[in-house]
């Protein structure tokens, strides 16, 4: 078989999982190495969470943000998903020769502003410049650590039958924004990335109740991918009510044109929260009272049957399997 890295390995679906399993986990495996969004470490001084994330996005500037804002949000949100308060970050840049300095500064300024909002400090960094054409403008990798909130224990393996499945916002906006920003499809729509640091949002949820089982950042691969990850890690099924999934009108229109499903499009400011059914109301209340959670919605439940699968209740009340996301997202005509 062809052993090359393909774009499908970067799409967040099944192949990405394979790449991590067969290359990285094989070599990096240790007791703290995590399948969740951040590792939890016991340094003898209280528990911390730690994670790292690389950012390549074309174009590096898009409606609603740029790669700098994205690089802070991604790592902050991964820490927040473990119930950690993000504290320190490092960042590493790979910059293409010839990249305009004032645009680099614009990126750095966005990082500063977003870090301040999230209450996190950038404490170390690294810069490399690659020859013209060796990278696409600029790549950023950020690493962050955060202090774990006492009494909170979150993991993709903790979903239980009967739990409520909640999304913290409308789905697919970031992925849709990037598709349109590439300007190759000739489609014009008023869609902005949902890119936002969600540590404050998670904090207010955890203030309402610490009895939460899973929080997952629905980035690459979208909510569909996250639901499959939870189903697999927890050994449960997930049932989603199609009509309850919040989708921005224009995102729906773009998806209709291109034959795509918003459930597979990336988010950078929307998470999936799984909590005991009796906590659903207070979680939703906390989300709705936060500016980043106004469109939060209960979209389904965890089931004991159909382990490892995501079942959708359709508009006509029938049940069907949500196809497992995989491969590159391709606009289709048929």
């Amino acid at each position: 078989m062809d052993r090359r890295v393909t774009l499908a390995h970067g799409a967040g679906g099944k192949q990405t999982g394979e790449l991590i399993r067969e290359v990285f986990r094989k070599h990096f495996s240790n007791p703290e190495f995590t399948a969740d969004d951040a590792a939890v470490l016991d340094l003898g001084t209280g528990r911390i969470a730690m994670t790292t994330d690389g950012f390549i996005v074309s174009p590096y500037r898009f409606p609603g943000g740029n790669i700098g804002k994205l690089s802070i949000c991604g790592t902050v949100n991964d820490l927040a998903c473990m119930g950690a308060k993000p504290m320190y970050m490092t960042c590493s840049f790979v910059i293409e020769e010839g990249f305009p300095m004032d645009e680099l500064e614009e990126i750095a300024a966005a990082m500063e502003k977003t870090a301040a909002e999230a209450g996190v400090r950038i404490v170390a960094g690294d810069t490399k410049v690659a020859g013209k054409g060796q990278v696409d403008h600029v790549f950023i990798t950020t690493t962050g650590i955060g202090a774990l909130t006492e009494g909170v224990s979150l993991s993709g393996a903790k979903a239980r039958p009967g739990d409520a499945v909640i999304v913290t916002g409308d789905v697919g906006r970031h992925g849709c924004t990037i598709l349109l920003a590439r300007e190759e499809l000739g489609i014009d729509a008023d869609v902005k990335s949902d890119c936002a640091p969600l540590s404050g949002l998670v904090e207010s949820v955890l203030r309402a109740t610490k009895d939460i089982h899973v929080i997952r950042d629905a980035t690459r691969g979208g909510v569909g991918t996250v639901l499959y990850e939870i189903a697999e890690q927890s050994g449960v099924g997930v049932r989603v009510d199609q009509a309850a999934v919040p989708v921005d009108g224009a995102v729906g229109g773009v998806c209709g044109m291109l034959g795509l499903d918003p459930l597979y499009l990336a988010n950078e400011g929307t998470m999936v929260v799984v909590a005991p059914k009796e906590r659903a109301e207070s979680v939703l209340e906390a989300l709705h009272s936060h500016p980043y959670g106004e469109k939060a919605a209960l979209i389904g439940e965890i089931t004991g049957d159909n382990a490892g699968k995501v079942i959708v209740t359709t508009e006509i009340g029938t049940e069907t399997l949500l196809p497992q996301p995989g491969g590159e997202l391709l606009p289709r005509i048929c």
Partner: protein
Amino acid sequence: MTAMAADAAVLKAGRIMTDIMEKREPARKSAREIIESYDGPKLRIMEVCGTHTHEIFRLGIRSLLPDTIELVSGPGCPVCVTPVGFVDEAVMLALEKGAVVCTFGDLIRVPGTKMSLAGARAEGARIRIVYAPDDAVEYAAAHPEEQVVFLAVGFETTTPAAALAVRRARDEKIENFSILTANKTMPNAYLALRGSADAFLYPGHVNAITGETECRRLAEESGISGVIAGFTAKELLTALAVIIEKSKTGEPFFVNCYPRVVRPEGNPAGLSLIREVMEPCDSEWRGLGIIPMSGLRLREEYRGYDARVRFALPKIEGRPNPACRCGEVLQGKCRPSDCRVFGKGCTPEHPVGACMVSSEGACAAYYQYGAK
């Protein structure tokens, strides 16, 4: 309001009034009730169109069907019926001839003899995904130093878009644009598929161009039954219910169940555009072999825009993987799960046959929705 809408509204109002006045449940069964309660002889229905296959799965319609109704998937996915040799030609254009190949996203992962377009892209070929053939012309106009080839696949629905692109290139003298044709037409395929099913669910968007005539004639002259179907839940359920009710008569039938989009005459401008730019030719369908006069190629006066001519492509005989049974799947002769490699050597990530590639391909739909 259109005349038809007005008629429907009057009918609806009349029915509601009767119901209210007589204080009874509506006597009429809903489409869904007709489908769920069907207990007549076994009925085999072929959804010709891959988008129908996809929507039927997405809407969970199969879960409503009694055992007496079997839905089989037909050859109506242009990606699935495109032969291996076509992918090989496209790969050769991109890798050896240095052309920028513009394609619908659907074709990217279809396996060729050696590799797919995705494979060629990983080797450095320039492949661009476009939403419309016209976008490829636009790109060619903006990059006169490059040779741009659009991969023209599709049935009557899609062919006018490719024909418009060629005509624009000629009118605006965009000489670095050409197309690689694999366009196909449906009527002869229906005849080739005769006997595969008791009734066809005709592909509504093909009929939007071709109209009712051909399908009506299939019922009247060849005894082939079918209905033109739309794509919403209501339209699909109604089309299935109409098939069930009409089948009870035992006579061949034809009904246009998608009149809000399909006119009896179709789209005359689209048909004459196809005739102006293209002419019929024999065409190879993956799995079905060569069906006489079921394909389209550029007419003599447009031959300069034919990539095969411009790049003097040699005749390429593609070699499909022998384990693959896509051909039988496309004819409804076997189910995807009957194939030896289905779900094992052949998955959406590593497709062996084209039916596993397109999300509307029968194999991909069966695999992703866990059907047997």
